[in-house]
């Protein structure tokens, strides 16, 4: 017989620093959901949290790392992937997972993203794409759609620029695993995150999320619930679709699925092999 515990604890709380809660996130934000996905993926895989490092940059999403009981590395804006590369190469036994925002990873950090993809270093990058810079109050970024409104692309003109499609970007830069889900597809997204972690190579998982406080308000997309319902409506699953066809149009269609899963020599493995050769082994 076991004694029942009076306090109900979340099954994932074993990975989460409850003393750091409540989360800083606004109600209706997707980041908490993605935090849950990652915790479940870690749980399902049974990986050693002492050998796991979660790296993030700066932004609302960047604050994710600090809620995990793994090793965490809350770095500088845009450089999470570069810091992570250093961590992984210095100790390839570590499981390295980057969680950061769309601005962090594809604006200021865009260069590091494409080069890490090209290098094919074994790590998992989870990019929460809320289509704007949440932390600084809702400016547009490289994932904001044309003519959408933001603090720095105000009415009546909207955004002059055009967005990146991060799936296409990662795929064409050489990532060996590329997937996209929305924040409401928790089970499938979690599964992809597991695959990404298991993959020996550079994995990129984009999660389309809602920022009701900034992007949602400025574009009149409704509250958090409305935005998440919308994500469910427009998500269209097309596993295995060639990545260059993985279109993303917030209003009408967000193609989701796993688009790339290829084999390519991984950087730290190749490096170890070269070092063995150099030693004449």
């Amino acid at each position, binding site marked *: 017989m076991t004694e029942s515990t009076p306090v109900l604890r979340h099954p994932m709380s074993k990975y989460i620093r409850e003393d750091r809660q*409540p989360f*800083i*996130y*606004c*109600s209706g934000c997707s980041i908490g959901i993605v935090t849950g996905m990652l915790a479940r993926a870690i749980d399902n895989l049974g990986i050693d949290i002492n050998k796991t490092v979660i790296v993030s940059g*700066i932004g*609302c999403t960047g604050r994710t790392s600090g809620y995990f009981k793994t090793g965490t590395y809350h770095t*500088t*804006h*845009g450089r999470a992937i570069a810091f992570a590369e250093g961590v992984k190469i210095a100790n390839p036994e570590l499981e390295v997972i980057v969680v950061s925002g769309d601005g962090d990873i594809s*604006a*200021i950090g*865009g260069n590091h993203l494409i080069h890490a993809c090209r290098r094919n270093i074994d790590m998992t990058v989870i990019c929460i794409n809320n289509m704007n*810079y*949440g*932390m*600084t*109050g809702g*400016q*547009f970024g*490289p994932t904001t759609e044309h003519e959408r409104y933001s*603090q*720095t*692309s*105000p009415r009546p*003109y909207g955004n002059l620029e055009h967005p990146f499609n991060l799936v296409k970007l990662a795929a064409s830069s050489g990532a060996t695993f590329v997937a996209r889900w929305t924040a409401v597809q928790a089970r499938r997204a979690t599964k992809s995150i597991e695959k990404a972690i298991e993959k020996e190579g550079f994995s990129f998982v984009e999660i389309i999320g809602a920022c009701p*406080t*900034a992007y949602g308000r400025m574009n009149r997309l409704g509250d958090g619930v409305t935005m998440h319902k919308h994500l469910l409506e427009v998500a269209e699953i097309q596993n295995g679709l060639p990545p260059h066809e993985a279109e993303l149009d917030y209003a009408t269609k967000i193609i989701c699925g796993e688009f790339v899963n290829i084999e390519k020599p991984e950087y730290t493995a190749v490096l170890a092999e070269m070092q063995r050769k150099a030693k004449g082994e």
Partner: protein
Amino acid sequence: MEITFNIGGAAGQGIDTIGDLLNQVFVQAGFYTFTIKDFESRIRGGYNFIQIRVSDKPIHASVDHVDVIIALSKDAVIGQRDRLTQGGVIIFDEGIEFDDLEACHFSAPLEKTAREVGGNIRMMNAAALGAVLAVISFPFSLAEKALTGIFGRKGEKIVAGNVNVAKALYDLTKSDFKGTCSYNLETLDQGPCKAKLLLTGNKALALGAIAANLKWISSYPMSPSTSLFENIVAYSHQLKIGALQTEDEIASITMAIGASYAGARSMVTTSGGGFSLMVEALGFAAMVEVPIVIYNAQRPGPSTGLPTRIEQSDLLFMGFASQGEFPRIMLAPKDPIEGFDVATRAFNLADKFQIPVMILGDQYFADSVMNIPRIDASGVKRDQGKLAKSGPDSDYKRYLLTKDGISPRAFPGDKGKTIVSSGNVHREDGHITEDSEMRTLMVQKFMNKIPAIMTELNPPQVYGEEKSEITLLTWGSTWGAANEAVEVLASGGVSINQLHFCDVFPLRTAKLREVFSQSKQVISVEQNITSQFASLVRMQIGLGVTQHINKYDGRPMTPGWIISELEEGGIV
């Protein structure tokens, strides 16, 4: 008359709107107001507050005490109640539970009234305004004016709703509030202040830049600088200003230097982390002698530090950033009025000397609000400096050696002139060279600009008695707190004055030498731990301050804090 309000709550609860309303009320009634904003680096939740100080005399600093607290969350009571003055009042929403309800606490149905009378809980702001005005017995008619001013463009219905909510709470408070507030403003006359323009430092800089004919701004969002950029973006299409939000700060400054090379008055806005990324291009701008204005709203570092808080710790970094040696100018405005002036001067100085001009702000300067007189922009002079004669000139040399080091500027596309520029050491025609003589001449060309720069910069200013035993040495936004401390102490018989610098680099030394020889004690007051300005002074004139007062907790200095530091140090 002097009264201080503290409005606190979670991010997103609308404390800013209550602050705006209160500000409007007192500004319309003819008073001086000074508002600081204290918030966490998060979008929702947490505990934020704003402090509004109102007076019939000009004020430039926040204070440690508070007379009326308006609390929208429990934290907002806990965070401030130890600072409440005798006879002060705490107004809080009845939804917040308290065990130790004292007479000075007034639990008001803010949310309920907003919902029931206005039909919208957002009108809680108007409710709060009504309660406050009743507690201090201020005429309600002023509330109506303020509400119309702020909500007017949202239509009559919204205005009427807000007025009704405010009035309901006003009347209810009048009958239900049993405590006594030591502030009874019923018989208050119209105040003496005519200044009606409520402005932050960042907005003042934006207006100054526009008045100076800014034509290009490229930035990447970074607190506490972002509102300057956003202010310009809002008008950029009308004013034909290129305003581009870039992918990072390296792109911001390189685009701006590109635009400036092409002839547009250009600036970038950032904070310390972003400025760090700009440093390589800063040196490039210096090498190619392209004018550029850089605004750094400093924040406590290193690294991400405290994104929304106050520090003055980038002075030496900015003064010496980049490889190599070249002239640069640094200006640190003390308040919004000076901010407007600094912005206009910055562009003229950059053009005139073809060098980087850097404006140093911080969250205190950037976000604090005060009411200032209407700005007359017609007096703004635009001086582009030496320009090449128009018309074809196949011999045009962009880097012509001149006595004062300044070569007449021309721009790519100018008829009959070719503009050659390079970050390598170059000849007068701009083509690269490794010639030792030319290298020497070009380095001297940079430095030859310095005497004229020195005469263009404003000297520091002495506040208080010209000759005093004690001098507080300050720069930038700490002016206000130190100034008031000096006034308070001097009126109590202490021989003390203030020597303040806005133009901090290169350093004008004449007045410094004078003050060092006159005052028995020169004490630096800085919002950093290493007294960076005092170090700069020692480096330039070999004289050291006698004592240092430093604050580095990210919170604003207050006159009271400076006085207590002086007392603890046995100085006064």
